[in-house]
Each structure stands twice: as C-alpha cells, then as structure tokens.
C-alpha cells in the first residue's frame, strides 16, 4: 500500500489493476510502483503465502520439531524442499503434520494438536526435544483453534519450548510470514534476555543453503570474528538462546530479518548493520564493515589482508566469465528486494545488462534502490505473473532469467537461459566461491549449445533442415573424387 503516485500508470498489461505495479526505469525515476499489496485474483501470481514465509525463516533450525497444524497439503508441498544444510541434527528435514480431517474441521483441531505434541514427547524419550514450533495454516483460525493456549499448556506440562507461529496463509503474504517467524524467535529468546554480553556477532538472514553459512563462517574464522548465533542457517536451540549475548547483529536477507534485528535492538540492545555476501564487492565491503564495527585495529588489518588475497584470486577467475557474458541481457524475478538488488550488482559486475527486475514481495525502499541501480529502460515489476514475464521477456530480448522453481519451465519454454537462485540450490552462490559459481552457472546456461538449435527453428521446418546432410555429401564427394583418381 506504500505507493506515491507521481504519474498515471501506463497501460502495460490488459489487467488495469496490475499497471500500477509495473514501471519502466527512466532517467529521472519519476514513477513509483505499488508494492506490498494483495495479489490480484486470477492473475497467477508467483507468490506463495504467509505460512511459506514463516517456514523459510524457521525451518533451517535443525533440532526443532516443526509441526504444521492443518490439512496435509500445506505440509506435503513444503516437505524438505529447501537446501538448508545441518552439521548435526536432521530433525528439521522431517515433515510433521496434524493432517486435519473433515471431522476436525467440524469439531476443532486443538485436541489433535495436543495429542500430537504429547506423542512427540512420548516417542522421543531417548533424545528429548528441546523446541517445537507449531505453525497455524489457513483454516486453523477459521475453525477457532487457540494454538497459543495449546502451546502454553504444553510448555508447562513438558518443560520445553513449544512456540506458536501465527501464519494462516491468507493473512497477508510471504513477508507477513517472515514477521510471524521473527515474533516466534523473539518469544524463544526472551528467556535469555539478561545474558552477559560477549564480543561476538549474530548472523541474521542466511539459511545455510548449500553450506553458504559455513563458507562465510570460514572467512570470519580467518579474520577472527566470533559468531554467537546464526539465524537460522544450521541453527540449533542451544545456540539460538545465546543470541541475546551478542554485541552486534549483521543482517543479510533484509526482507526477512530486519524486523528481528529491530526487535533485538529494542529488547536486547544489540545494534545491527546490513551486509550482503553476494558478489565480490559486497562480500569484501561487508567483511570490512563488520571488522570496523567491532572496532579493533588488528582485526581490521586482518580483514584487509584476507580480502586482498582472496579478491585477487577470485577476480582472476571471473575475468574468463566476464569476457563470455559481456553485454548479455538479464531478467531478474525473485522473492525479495534484497536478492534482486544483490543480483543487479552482480550482473553489472559481470558486464551484463539488466532488462527486467521484479520481486514477489519487495518493499518501497527496495524499489527505490532498484531504480538507482538498474539500467535505463529496465522494466520493474512487483508481484508479477507468467503473462507479464512472458511479455516483457519477449519485448526486452532477455538472454537469461534468474528466478525460482516456478519460473524455470517458463524461461525454458521461451527459449531462454536460466539461473536457479532459489532455496533449492545445491551449490553455494554466496561469498567469493559463490561469486564464481554464479558466473559459471550463468555462463553454462547462456552459452549452452542448445540455444543454437532453438534459433534455427522456424515454424515450417520445425528446425529439421538438410544442410547437415549437405556437409556429409561434400565429404563423401571428396572421397569419391579421390578414389576415382586412384
């Protein structure tokens, strides 16, 4: 709902309501788009729901039992679909669902939830749970279950933390889910509010996809930065409750974690800074920023030295890709503003042109930043859909789309390269190693031989032409000529 209209929206699509969420980047940036509003029914939005956002944030907590209170589908479609890695417990990779049935819808699901928690306690006496999250999905509120009361009773009865996550899908979008998750994390940390402060940081907004958290932690270790707790990549109960003792919060995924950082500042007096470990420049800057914040000279020196070495090495490798990717056109459609912004920077660094930037749930300030960074003429979209993506991809002549799982088949059907920048990824895209992986993935897709087939297709021959045979003919003819000579 945050929009400042400075100009009437242009007719970009046939759906009037959508036009105000689309803009073309112009030199004077006068058009601002509507974002943060409800999806328009029937447009096939790429967004998921509040519950989805909550799961993104909390699910990486490895030793927690994540109970999805609701019908089975919501749990089934989100079971182990994200690539957060763990160094110890694997409990988080299980799906626990109360699998609400019709009779529960009629009579209420509280009893079932209570019994479900009891069963988890009962069945895991050997390795007793320390932390249970209970997610409320859409129909839970509607049928009148009071999950807060159930969780509270369970905490008293079993002496462990049982924390409700208020995430009915319809009550907003993914971003509201982030907030619900952050509230749950605050509830968890309250118990250790008064811990003595130590010289160390909390790392907020990295989910240890493909080990990214580990990778960045290695940099910290070399430089000498202590990490108290991580949110929530490779996190566990024991570490999370220590978080209030940290002296600095660093926030990466701003969309999901700024709210938590602000709350922690308020309640635990931990200041925060925003950082990003995507791309060489951002990674280097962020490391320095952290070092400066912690403030000791030796540390800053070590950071500078570390960066100098690793940057040089990385740049050398990137050179190869820059040559191969120069001036190619990139379209970006991702979940949040933070990711979009860091992708623009990375593409710029590779010498590529940006033609589309869109997000599912970016905020007004994200779009401000996007206007500044993106090339002139870039199409900017909020909460877009397949129709628009197709249209603008065709119009802008994009060579590659960066996006999530749902966007991939669309890109391929349009004959476009694709980069999987989603939570499923199996190789790290963060840090210096990640910057190389990123360039490599772009190169592997954009410069694949497959696109040469695609280009040759015209509707009449469907690409089957006989010039291939002609080549053989020539070779054979030569042979025949030679034979005749003999």
């Amino acid at each position, binding site marked *: 709902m945050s929009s400042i209209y400075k100009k009437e929206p242009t007719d970009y699509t046939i759906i009037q309501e959508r036009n105000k969420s689309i803009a073309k980047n112009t030199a004077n940036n006068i058009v601002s788009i509507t974002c943060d509003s409800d999806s328009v029914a029937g447009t096939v939005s790429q967004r998921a729901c509040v519950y989805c956002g909550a799961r993104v944030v909390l699910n990486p907590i490895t030793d927690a039992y994540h109970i999805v209170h609701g019908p089975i*589908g*919501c749990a089934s479609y989100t*079971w182990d679909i994200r690539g957060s890695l763990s160094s110890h417990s694997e409990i988080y990779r299980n799906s*626990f*669902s109360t699998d609400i049935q019709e009779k529960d819808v009629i009579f209420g699901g509280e009893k079932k939830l209570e019994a479900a928690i009891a069963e988890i306690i009962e069945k895991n006496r050997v390795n007793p749970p320390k932390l249970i999250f209970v997610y409320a999905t859409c129909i839970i509120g509607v049928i009148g279950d009071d999950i807060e009361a159930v969780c509270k009773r369970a905490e008293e009865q079993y002496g462990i933390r049982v924390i409700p996550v208020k995430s009915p899908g319809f009550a907003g979008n993914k971003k509201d889910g982030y907030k619900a998750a952050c509230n749950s994390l605050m509830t968890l940390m309250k118990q250790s509010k008064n811990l003595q402060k130590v010289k160390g940081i909390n790392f907020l907004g990295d989910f240890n996809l493909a080990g990214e958290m580990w990778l960045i932690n290695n940099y910290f270790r070399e430089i000498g930065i202590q990490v108290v707790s991580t949110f929530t990549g490779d996190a566990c109960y024991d570490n999370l409750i220590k978080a209030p003792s940290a002296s600095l919060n660093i926030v990466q995924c701003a969309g999901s974690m700024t709210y938590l950082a602000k709350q922690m500042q308020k309640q635990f007096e931990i200041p925060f800074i925003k950082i990003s470990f995507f791309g060489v420049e951002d990674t280097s800057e962020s490391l320095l920023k952290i070092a400066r914040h912690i403030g000791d000279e030796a540390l800053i020196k070590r950071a500078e030295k570390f960066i100098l070495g690793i940057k040089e090495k990385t740049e050398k490798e990137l050179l190869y890709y820059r040559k191969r990717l120069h001036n190619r056109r990139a379209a970006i459609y991702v979940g949040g503003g933070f990711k979009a912004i860091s992708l623009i920077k990375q593409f710029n660094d590779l010498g590529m042109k940006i033609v589309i930037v869109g997000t599912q749930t970016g905020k007004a300030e994200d779009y401000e930043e996007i206007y500044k960074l993106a090339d002139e003429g870039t199409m900017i979209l909020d909460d877009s859909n397949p*129709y628009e993506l*197709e249209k603008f991809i065709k119009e802008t002549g994009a060579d590659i789309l960066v996006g999530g799982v749902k966007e991939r088949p*669309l890109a391929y059907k349009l004959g476009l390269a694709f980069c999987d920048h989603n939570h499923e990824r199996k190789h790290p895209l963060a840090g210096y190693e990640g910057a190389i992986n990123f360039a490599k993935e772009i190169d592997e897709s954009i410069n694949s031989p497959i696109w040469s087939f695609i280009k040759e297709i015209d509707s009449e021959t469907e690409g089957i032409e006989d010039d291939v045979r002609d080549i053989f003919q020539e070779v054979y003819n030569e042979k025949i000529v030679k034979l005749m000579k003999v």
Partner: protein
Amino acid sequence: MEKNYVNLDVNPCKMCMPMGMATVLKGIKNCMTILHGSQGCSTYIRRHMATHYNEPIDIASSSLTEEGTVYGGENNLKTALLNVIKLYSPEVIGIGTTCLAETIGEDIDRIIKEVKDIEPYNKVRMITASTAGYKGTQFEGYHVAMRSIIQQLADNPVKNKKLNILVPHLTPADIRYIKEVLNDFNADYTLFPDFSETLDSGYSKEYKRIPEGGTDAKDIANMGGAKASIQLGVTVPHELSAGHYLLERFRVPLFQIPVPIGVKNTDRFIKLLSQLTGNPIPVKYKKARARALDAMIDSHKYNAQGKATLFGEPELVYSLASLCIENGIKPEVLAIGGKNVLFKKLLAPLVVKEGYNPLFLSEADFETIQQQTIIRNSNILIGSSDGKWIEEREGIPLIRVGFPVHDRIGAQRRLNVCYEGTLRLLDEITNCLIEHKHDGYRKEMYESFYKKQVCSQ
C-alpha cells in the same frame, strides 16, 4: 496396520485433493484452472507440478485475503474469472475449492450460476468440483474431478460408436502410448483426461500460454452416448468413478480393469480392446508380448532376489504389485497414503495366491513405511521420489515411478504401460537388483565365510 504416530503424519505419502483436480484439468483442451482459496495453495501445487513435469504450470487463485475469508470470497472468484478470461482466453475454466473455501462455506456453483450468462463470463464454459484438501488425497481429488466434469459436460446421450477411455494419473508418455494402441486397433474413442501433450509439450517457436492438446469438451459432451467405457483403475470406488456415473446415468456399459502395467494386466487391456473393436490383436503387440516374456525368463533369477516396498496411490501400487508378483519379486510392504478399501480387498487375494504375505499399510506416512521396510528387510523401493528419504537413510535403492518425482529429470516421459512399458520398468528393477548384488556380494561372502576358515586353520 496403523501408522506409528496416531495424531501426526510424519513425512507424508499423500497430497491434497486440489492437486488431483489440477491434473485432470490439464487434460482438457484450452482449459484454465482456478483454485478458490488463498494464494499459497495454488502456488504450492504449481510448484509441485512444475518440478515434476518440467513444464510451466499456470494455475490461478482467487487469492482470498482476510476480508474474503470473513465476508465471503464471491468477489474474489468473480475477479479471478474475469482476469483469467482476459489473460488466457480459455474455452473452459475449471474451478476447484481448497480447504479454506470449503471451511468458510463458499458455494461456487451458485456463484457460477449467477454470472454464467453475463458478458464476458458467457464466453467460457465453467466447470466446478468440490475438492477440499482435508476431504481426501490427490487420488480422490483426481477422480472426484473426473466424475464432476463428466457430470457437467456429458449432456448429449445420443448413441454414438465411440469408446470412452477413462485414465487415472498416468504419465503423459503412458497416455500417448495408450492412444497409439487404440489407434492400432482402429478404435474410435474419447480419452479423458488427456494431458499427454499439455504436460509434456515440445519446444516450439511460439510459446502457448495454454499448451495444445487435451480432451475437447465437445467430445466429453458425447460420452453419455458411447458404446462402452473402459475405466483403467480398479481401485476407484463406485461413488468416485466416472465410469460408474456413465453407467448409472446413461447405461454405458463399463469395463473397469487395472492399469496395463504387468503382462497380465496388459493382456486384459489388449483383449478387451480386441473384443470391443472387433479387430484382431495387431502383430506388433503379439511380438511385444513375446519379447516381454523372453525378458522375464532372462531376468527371473535376479528378480527372485527382490524384496520390494511399494508406496503411492492405490492404483499405481496395485499395478506395480502385479508386476512384481508375476516376476517373482516379493512384495514386502504395500503402502498407500490415503484410505482405500478396494486396494487391499483386490490385491490381497492376488498376493496370497502366490504365497506371499506382505504388509498392507493404508493412510501410511513415510516414517511408518521406513520402519516397516527395515523390519521386513526390503531391498528395493518402488514409488515416488518422496521415498528418497528412505533411500538416503537406509541405503535401499529407489525406483522412481509415480508422482511426484522431484530429484530426477524426465518423469513425464517415462513409459510404464503395456508390454513395452512393463518391460522397461522391469529391466530397471532387475538392473537395480543386479547392481546391488554385484556391489555387495564380495564383501558379503568375505564376511560370511573367510573369517571362519582363518579360525579353523
């Protein structure tokens, strides 16, 4: 047998009803789908299908918000219809309900009735199904959708010469192959739902927002006048079966037979087609059958080593179990994620006749399937990629068949049906057993015998 946790489903072996509805709707020509409910359900179902089929899956949502949930979602649904008409220009729009819509008591039939004669709603044919996620799994959703759609579209009872071919959730490649068989028999038929092209389309220069292919609604209209129906699927209960509806309502003779996976099941299908069309069995299929038998002889001793855990939708597990049994692969655990009385009723006599005593699990979750697999000492898993969990933890290999397959490519073009598909599937199973044996036997022999000899010296 009950699952381990009574009040929890731990690692689900099922999905929800709208998933089945969405799949069926992909089998109708020029059709778009709207799920009435909140945005997440649509998006998750799209995502789940997109990673299996590797195709763009456009499913709209009426995007209910807090307001819609409290005051009713009528306006949202109407807006959704309008926007879908604008963006996709479909001939048919299928509307399914989600848990939320059902819980707040949305009456979609009434809403549709109100608008169906008004511009521009009157440009499309709107069909509905009640598919609350909590009322059943994707299996029930699939068949409820089939039945409801036929109920709404089959309105011309004038007799015709066609056969109705009613297919369950097979792969696009399976459906393509079944059509090939039908054509080889010179059959005149309406196959429904036909997602053989829509969920596995080729690359073309021009992108089509609604992919080509699918059963024409006009042909569905005539299904009530057909000569006979063949419903592939014996585990579909009467009240959900489209074939039964056509039988009861229009007296279309019904032949309900298993999915043609396995030689015996394929025989049934082929013979039935020969009878119904009056045409002899083409040599092609006689040869294919002979080749299948030859292969079964070649592989029978390897197969005898197999102890299988099968899981998934009842119809698939039924036919996979038939395939296992006729090749001497012991069925150890037969698990379905939903409730289905016919499944065990029909399958138990088959397995008992062959002297097997497998464990039947219904409403099973993977936690239970995993545990029983270990107790039963199975050495092969056959089912969807959700079994990767057991594969990963217990080191038991998994043959990926069914839906979903998320961690491999090509599930949509996998052929499992008729002699040819059966053979491919069997080869894969056999090779897996051989690989397993070859990998392990040196070590096993060494550990079993070598030490003893050392001691006796």
